[in-house]
């Protein structure tokens, strides 16, 4: 059995898409925070 249950419907598609989007944004923000901390946070100025 594979995944035929999923795409019969669109509400679950939207919910899972939103989950991916939120996780992607969260991941990007973490990377940005990391970058700022290591590059700008330690700037001599």
């Amino acid at each position, binding site marked *: *059995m*594979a*995944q*035929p*249950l*999923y*795409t*019969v*419907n*669109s*509400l*679950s*598609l939207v*919910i*899972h*898409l939103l*989950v*991916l989007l939120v*996780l992607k944004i969260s991941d990007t923000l973490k990377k940005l925070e990391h970058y700022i901390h290591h590059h700008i946070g330690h700037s001599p100025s």
Partner: protein
Amino acid sequence: MANRLRNPIAVIIPAHNEAAIIHTTIKQLLHYLPRHQIYVVDDGSSDGTASIAQKLVPHVISHAKNMGKGAAINTAIKRWRLLQKYPYIMPLDADTTISPNFFPAILAFFDQDIHQNFACANGRVVAYQKNWITAYRMWEYEIGQTIHKAAQSILGGIVVSPGCATVYRSSVFRQFKFPTHSLAEDMDLTFTIHRRHLGKIGFISQAEVITQDPSTLIDFIHQVDRWYTGLWQNICKHNLPWEGQMLDFEIALLATEALFSGFLYLCLIVLLPLSFSIDIRLFIIPLAIDICFFILPTLIYTSIRRRVKRMIIYLGHFYLLRTLSSLIFIKCFFKVMFDQQPAFGWFSPRRYQLI
């Protein structure tokens, strides 16, 4: 071949009347694995499946009578003591073709899992394209895995590890046997892994396998009927969705929505003859929204990703199959809820040679 694996994975091919395809499957698999790592269990075939396999690999055994896929896998594990010899076990359907990247990607994933948090790793299933019915399945797989499964993987709620694309740690089978007496053994095993907290389930998107899906409407109906019956059997067996795991949430969401859609389609079919007497916009507006915001974008995505240009012209066909699937979903719900006769056995759609 230089890229053949040395030892880590045993591939078990359970087969029932697969003479048309088993030769191609094994020959292709031999590009990536030495022959002694491939184990074939002929489950009471009457078409010479075993003799074809014996010409290609040394480990072939036959059941005198048909006992089912789960029983065939358990026979291989016991007969050749695979749990003592290999850290990883992969059951492989006789109709499945492995992509060159499959084993390297899966093994790299397990190598990174130093603390052995993962019980198994799923690859991505791709449907072989033949006609409008296989195109529908290709679209379902593509969207189901790119969006649903990717999200489930992060949340820890993968609902099915496909029987044709999953590599398990041997430790999983030390604790219990591969499920038998189920129409969806792989889903049964996935639910068991969640329920017994045996480990996480990984999804490795770049590890692809290609499967042969039904190319006729009758085979399509039989396969969907089997899958959905298996789903409802497993929902009852594992007490879903009442135990508070992410799996329960996923199944509750997917099954409730699918039931709702099924009843909606049923109502629409019943009301269709009345559509001339009521406002036609009641039908047209939801349909237009569905096409513009769901069907078309996902079809275009799949069409580009899998390079199947004709997919767009199958739009109408897809609505037919989608409606059919929804109605079968309801039928299976009532069948399992009101008829407790356990059903299991093999289903193989008509096979075709890959080009």
